[in-house]
């Protein structure tokens, strides 16, 4: 097993997840993830882990631009087959589950692009130096950005969740 194959085994799922949170389409995320590793096989990058996420971010950015052009990038989670209903959840619970997911997604989308990028890269398992290299931040600024992004994500989610509950009560 070469280095790239090992990286594929350990990173593929994280790359799919990273891409899904940007394109919001499970099939497309998998397709783009495979494209990332196809390119990695051709380029054999020196720092493969950081490289695959950098390429994934670029592909997602291109995808988002194309989606904007097609004016169909705001697919509702309830209509997204990739999200899918959770098995054995009653109808009311399903609605609440979908709303919760939508609230998280809205909270994530409410972040600034840089905060969202840093947060997703950290969640994908990249180290501070790797995040710094990819985003152009100083290594020391990554912790600051992460602190702000986490706080804003949770605050935004709590506000959204409170609004949803107020609407139904």
């Amino acid at each position: 097993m070469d280095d790239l194959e090992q990286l594929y085994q350990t990173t593929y799922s994280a790359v799919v997840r990273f891409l899904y949170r940007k394109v919001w389409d499970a099939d497309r995320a998998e397709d783009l993830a495979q494209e990332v590793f196809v390119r990695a096989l051709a380029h054999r990058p020196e720092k493969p882990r950081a490289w695959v996420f950098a390429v994934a971010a670029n592909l997602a950015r291109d995808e988002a631009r194309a989606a904007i052009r097609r004016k169909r990038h705001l697919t509702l989670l309830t209509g997204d087959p990739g999200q899918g209903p959770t098995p054995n959840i009653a109808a009311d619970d399903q609605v609440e589950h979908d709303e919760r997911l939508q609230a998280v997604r809205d909270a994530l989308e409410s972040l600034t692009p840089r905060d969202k990028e840093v947060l997703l890269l950290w969640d994908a398992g990249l180290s501070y130096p790797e995040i710094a290299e990819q985003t152009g931040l100083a290594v020391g600024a990554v912790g600051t950005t992460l602190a702000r992004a986490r706080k804003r994500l949770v605050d935004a989610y709590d506000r959204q969740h409170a609004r949803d509950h107020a609407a139904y009560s």
Partner: protein
Amino acid sequence: MIGNMRETMRHIPEDELHSYLDQALSRSQCVEIESHLAACESCRRARDNIAALRDRTTALLATLAPPRRFSPSIDVVRERASERATHRHRRRRAMAWAASVVAALGLGWWANTYVSHAQPATTAVAPDRRPAPADRAPVPRDAIPVAHGHAGTADDGAVEMRADHPAKALGSAAPTQPIRLVAMPRVAEPPRLELSTASLPTSSSEPALGGIWRTLSWAGAQTERGDSVPHIDGLPVVEVQVGQAGAAAGSKSIMVVAQQLASGEVIRTIEGPAADVSQLLNSRPGAQNPSPWPTAADPGIAGGDGAMAMRHGDRMLAITAQLSNDSLRAMMRRLNAEMRGR
């Protein structure tokens, strides 16, 4: 910095606690922070709050995950990469091919423009329209036509009429009646292997070389002669004939292969014993006397008035067509080179 903060009992900044919990600090920084935390309840609470925030962020993000599926084997990715490389290679080859076609078209256009300045040669079907030598327009010396692989083009009939060797262009002023090369129809049916009376030569005044010729199919000729069938590559073959008599014992008899240019004109390549070939060439109406054909002592290309030949020992290779001497000479060189290469 952290050490100074601890010394002055300033609390640990939040971002440093995030970095600490993310294990993004050096070992020495961790030791300093842990020392401060041991003595500072406020910072311990801040650490616990940040740890909870961190866990909650992780939990929220975890809900935004695609349905869990099996990861495809890396072989799938390798195959896709291989297909991509093949596609790139094909695309490069297609680009190179397209570029070569464009270059060839450009060259052809240039050649067409250049050759079109030469006076058109008369065709075999209208020999009486052939201009008199005095009427021939002078053309550059380097405009000697070259027989291409696809020699059957309309330009084959548009070649210069100048004779570089007036002494050998004896037939230019004579009646230009070709040896039944005129108006050869395109053969629609496949060549047949059969015995027939001679269809060449045709003139009643010429010796008939024994009078019996065989008409062969192209495949039959190749079976009989192998690669030594006289012909010009790239032109359709309309007739192959083999003389039955006149050859010395043990040697191959004379063979005549008629091919057609795209202009409709027929060009014949002849190979056989020198005596038979020269006799056949001399049998044409209006043939020169004395013979202009190459001899054993002077085997180089010689001829004129629609025929050109060269010697190879006691064998002779010849071409007849209603083309200028220079065109025939160029075709003769090409034929000789092709025959040597076979």
